[in-house]
């Protein structure tokens, strides 16, 4: 719009005006792309094509510095030629042709007859080039790329082209920097939000710890009184065998409650840095397997473990991670009442610096409707389950800044994935 208005104001289209109009059009188009906050690669592509189309250049392209500025790689170019060079990829050194010269010297270079340039190198994709204009693209005082314009005819470039190309190079630099800043901002925000989530999590854990501790106290006293009372009844001479048995059940149930309370307390006990040690996950899986060997045999379950030998040792609260693996393996076993296969695998995921533990079973699977609830405390499908196994496992993995994911298919099995960061 602004450009049209401008055009109308300049009533008499002189050569000078027509040229200024073209220049405005290119710069305006690029600024609009930048304002619309498009991706830098999109802005670049649009700018190169706009330049070529409006000025009838042969080809407009940009090379980008790589390997700390030792080399340049083809970033993008106008039209079909640009697309095809980009697809194939093209890397050049700083000794290579006009583009290399500009990247090396940091100075713009313009020739109206490439045949007069001793260091000119013809690009096989651009056999018709007769004139070339190349401008360095500086970002934060470093040469980050070269804007390179080719013309099929000699003696076509003048100061206006140079000025325009310089403006475009400046705009590209601003667009690139803006995108970099935007990405930095996004990263910072992301980091802030995950730190905050962690803080909330540790606050939640601390609150839970206080709650569990006081509930434990409130429950342990009555449990002691109940156990005492049951014991006193059992000591009576007149007790029938049946009553004796009933009392034994009541006593062992109070013991189970006490055990549960102490397990909860242990889970939510405040932990400090000193509770963390550097441990081998593979070793912990081996130990868990030893604990479960008899249980597995009795349940007709084949066990397989594929450890990643390159998995580094990682920081953890050892007994807690062992409890998680044990809980998950026990769940897997319970899902295979008529036997099956339990497989555990560890992997080092170097791309996000995580240790991965995968636990596969060929069991009954989890109803997709129940899947979202399985980590909730006191949620259970087992007649004798406490509903705390997975909830506790979840809390433990959270405390380790890790993740736990479950995939399941009814009647075919469940896979649990635990991710633990390699570093705290």
């Amino acid at each position, binding site marked *: 719009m602004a450009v049209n208005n401008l055009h109308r104001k300049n009533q008499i289209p002189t050569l000078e005006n027509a040229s200024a109009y073209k220049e405005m059009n290119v710069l305006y188009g690029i600024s609009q792309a930048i304002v619309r906050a498009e991706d830098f690669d999109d802005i670049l592509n649009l700018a190169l094509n706009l330049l070529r189309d409006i000025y009838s250049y042969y080809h407009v392209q940009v090379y980008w510095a790589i390997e700390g500025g030792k080399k340049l790689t083809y970033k993008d170019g106008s039209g079909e030629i640009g697309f095809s060079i980009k697809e194939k990829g093209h890397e050049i050194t700083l000794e290579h042709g006009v583009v290399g010269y500009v990247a090396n010297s940091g100075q713009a270079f313009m020739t109206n007859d490439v045949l007069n340039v001793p260091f000119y190198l013809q690009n096989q994709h651009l056999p018709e080039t007769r004139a070339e204009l190349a401008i360095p693209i500086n970002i934060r005082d470093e040469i980050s790329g070269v804007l390179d314009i080719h013309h099929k005819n000699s003696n076509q470039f003048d100061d206006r082209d140079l000025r325009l190309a310089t403006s475009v190079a400046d705009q590209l630099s601003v667009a690139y920097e803006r995108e970099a800043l935007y990405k930095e901002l996004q990263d910072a925000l992301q980091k802030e939000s995950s730190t905050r989530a962690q803080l909330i999590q540790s606050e939640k854990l601390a609150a839970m710890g206080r709650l569990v501790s006081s509930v434990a106290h409130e429950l342990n006293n009555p449990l002691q*009184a109940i*156990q005492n*009372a049951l014991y*006193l009844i059992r000591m009576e001479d007149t007790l029938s065998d049946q009553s004796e048995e009933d009392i034994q059940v009541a006593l062992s149930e109070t013991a189970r409650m006490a055990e549960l309370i102490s397990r909860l307390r242990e889970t939510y006990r405040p932990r400090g840095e000193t509770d963390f040690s550097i441990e081998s996950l593979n070793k912990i899986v081996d130990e868990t397997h030893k604990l479960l060997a008899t249980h597995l045999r009795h349940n007709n379950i084949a066990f397989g473990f594929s450890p990643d030998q390159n998995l580094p040792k990682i920081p953890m609260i050892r007994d807690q991670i062992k409890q998680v693996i044990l809980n998950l393996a026990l769940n897997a076993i319970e899902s295979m009442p008529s036997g099956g296969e339990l497989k555990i695998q560890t992997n080092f995921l170097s791309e996000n610096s995580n240790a991965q533990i995968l636990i596969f079973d060929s069991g009954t699977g989890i109803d997709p409707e129940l899947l979202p609830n399985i980590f909730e405390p006191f949620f259970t499908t087992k007649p004798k389950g406490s509903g705390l196994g997975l909830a506790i496992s979840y809390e433990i993995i959270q405390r380790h800044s890790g993740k736990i994911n479950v995939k399941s298919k009814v009647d075919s099995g469940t896979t649990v994935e635990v991710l633990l960061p390699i570093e705290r």
Partner: protein
Amino acid sequence: MSSSLSDNRNGQILIVEDDPNVRRSLGRVLRLAGCEITSACSGEQALQYLEEADYDLVYLDVLLPGMDGLEVLRKLRENSPDLAVIFLTAHASLHLAKEALRLGAEDYLTKPIYPEVLISKTKAFLAEKLNLRSN
């Protein structure tokens, strides 16, 4: 000052416990094991009883109204440096257990403890004490 087991008793035990159901049932359990039991429902009351009679063993709760168990232990140490004290508490805390042992408590037991276990611990403790005395 020191209490004596040599006069053919099974042991004089003072239970300091504010929860009435725990206090009464614990007393009956230990009586069944042949001990003589006195019960106090607060630290202040316990200290008063300790002034009036000799005991072989004190079962002491930690969380008490008013003076807490650790304070009671500190106070009673002023007059009875050798009195045997076992903590029996629903509050499992490593920090408190350490402090209790530092003040010379014999043990730090957490509730609930099976009455059989408590009886056997009590008997073993008293027997050892008796043995020490007769030597």
